[in-house]
């Protein structure tokens, strides 16, 4: 489903080389590495948020390097869901509207019933009408998982989804993320240096 080959990225003279990975549809993996090892860069490359300099990424058989900027935007909107370390939302509209905007940006047809079931699964239904600033970090993170799942993606990428959360929320958020990915048969790749997650996932990739 997701394979990379000889992927590397240079910031000026500093070159980061990434290990080749291969992830099956519906499987889950943890990408570990200390700060400065290029975890975020790796994730952004996989998510098509930055241009591939050398090497290749194939998602669902598609060569990411060959997509135009616009095609990349569309592909990401349709097939990839991303959860960030600090969840950002459009501040002027409610959480439910935020999810609807996310749905509208993707080509995937999304019904309100699906949005509701997502919110239910993530236990945030009662917060739907709240504005982003009224939510706690943990609550926001749940919504950002809902947002990442809204386009029924093939691949979910999560960048340090738990490092800003306390232990209790960390376990809960990971569990929800993992469950939701399984429920949709989506592949899940979590990039983190959060040691708390190590014991929870078997497939681990280490960046050096």
């Amino acid at each position, binding site marked *: 489903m997701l394979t990379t080959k000889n992927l590397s990225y240079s910031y000026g003279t500093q070159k980061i080389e990434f290990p080749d990975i291969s992830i099956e549809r519906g499987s889950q993996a943890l990408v570990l590495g200390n700060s400065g090892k290029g975890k975020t860069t790796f994730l952004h490359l996989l*998510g098509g948020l930055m241009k591939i300099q050398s090497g290749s990424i194939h998602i669902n058989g598609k060569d990411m390097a060959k997509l135009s900027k616009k095609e990349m935007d569309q592909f990401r909107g349709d097939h990839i869901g991303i959860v*960030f370390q600090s969840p*950002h939302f459009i*501040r002027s509209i409610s959480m439910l509207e935020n999810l609807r905007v996310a749905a509208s940006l993707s080509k995937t047809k999304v019904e309100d019933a699906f949005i509701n079931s997502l919110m239910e699964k993530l236990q945030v239904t009662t917060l739907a009408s709240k504005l982003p600033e009224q939510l706690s970090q943990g609550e926001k993170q749940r919504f950002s998982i809902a947002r990442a799942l809204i386009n029924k993606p093939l691949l979910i990428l999560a960048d340090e989804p738990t490092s800003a959360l306390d232990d209790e929320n960390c376990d809960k958020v990971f569990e929800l993320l993992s469950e939701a990915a399984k429920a949709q048969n989506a592949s899940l790749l979590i990039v983190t240096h959060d040691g708390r997650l190590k014991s929870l996932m078997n497939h681990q990739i280490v960046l050096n």
Partner: protein
Amino acid sequence: MHKPLNALLGILLFTLGVGLVDFLIVMDHQLKEKFQKNLAEIDLVIGAKGSPLQMILSSMYHIDNPTGNISLESVKAFRNPKHPLISNTIPLSIGDSYNGFRIIGTEEKILETYKTELVDGAMWKEDFDVVIGSSVQKRLGLKLGDTFHSSHGFVMEDHTMHDDVSPFKVVGILGSSGSVLDQLILTNTSSIWAVHGIEGHDHGDGHDHEDEHDHDHDHADDGHAHDDLEAELPEELEITSLLVQFKNKKSYQALNMLRGINENTDLMAASPALELNRLYDMMGVGTDALRNLALIIALVSALSIFVSLFNSLKERKYELAIMRVMGGSQGKLFSLMSWEGLIIGILGTLSGILAAHIFMEVFAGVLEHKYKYPFTGLNFYKEEIVLVVVALLIAFLASVIPAIKASRIDIHNTLAKG
């Protein structure tokens, strides 16, 4: 927009700029329309020497004081039906009023000239019979058979009342023509002479009947020693001005007549069309100043849209990046951002135009009294379409740079730091 006050400020400024420009457009349009309508194909006005513009304003538009009087004898030649150049003349005697409406001594054919007809009653048959314009009727609520005393000058005061002579009697009411006749009280020329104690020809015997009012015949008349003038000859009769229509407007002699009168006689002649253009030029200075002010306001409002969008870029970079992550293309972000400016522009433009028209409608009454024409806020003009297009273009241009910046946001750098 996350900051409603910023948006409100932008809309308000836009409203102000568009509203001011639009008000000028509407005002300009209606003034010119009315001025033009009241030209009534009058080619020349002849009156006493003074300011030609003042004579035109007083004789054609009835908004200024007359320049003085001229003897009927001095314009006799122009009134000769066999005059080779002139097809029609209308004498005007101006100087009295009733409740702020001017009483004009003239001839019946003025109705035809201004394309106005009676809707009630009949034309005057005797002295002191008057025919009133539609606005006069509406404002003063006069009916056929009502009588009133005129006052000297255009302001109604006790000591200027002509209450020592027989009162005027309403015998006819004119239909509304949108011309200045709507605002006038018309009578024959000899009535005006009679009021001022001058014995003209064809003087009716209206002195004694219809006298339901108590006349204070002992009231001292200030300045109108009519008893002494009773003996004077008809040659001394005066009018205020003469409206002239040419047989052929473009004939060489007709065009020269104006200069001939001004150079060779004690009279003054002026062309309404020329004086009107002079007036437009003079008004133009004021209008231009206002228009420039409106333009500056419009630019400031554009700047406010620009600044608030630009500032919001910094605050919203995460939102924008997230929208890109979720599949929003650069074009999508560009259009989102420029729509935000455009919406401010659209709201501001709409409310500006609305405000201008409401303002015009509210002040129509004040203006009507001052300029003697009805104004309305309900008419819309072609120029306003141009105004809308230009206003929206300005709003769009103000948001183009922020929109481009929004579309070029670096997702990786933004989110890697967030």
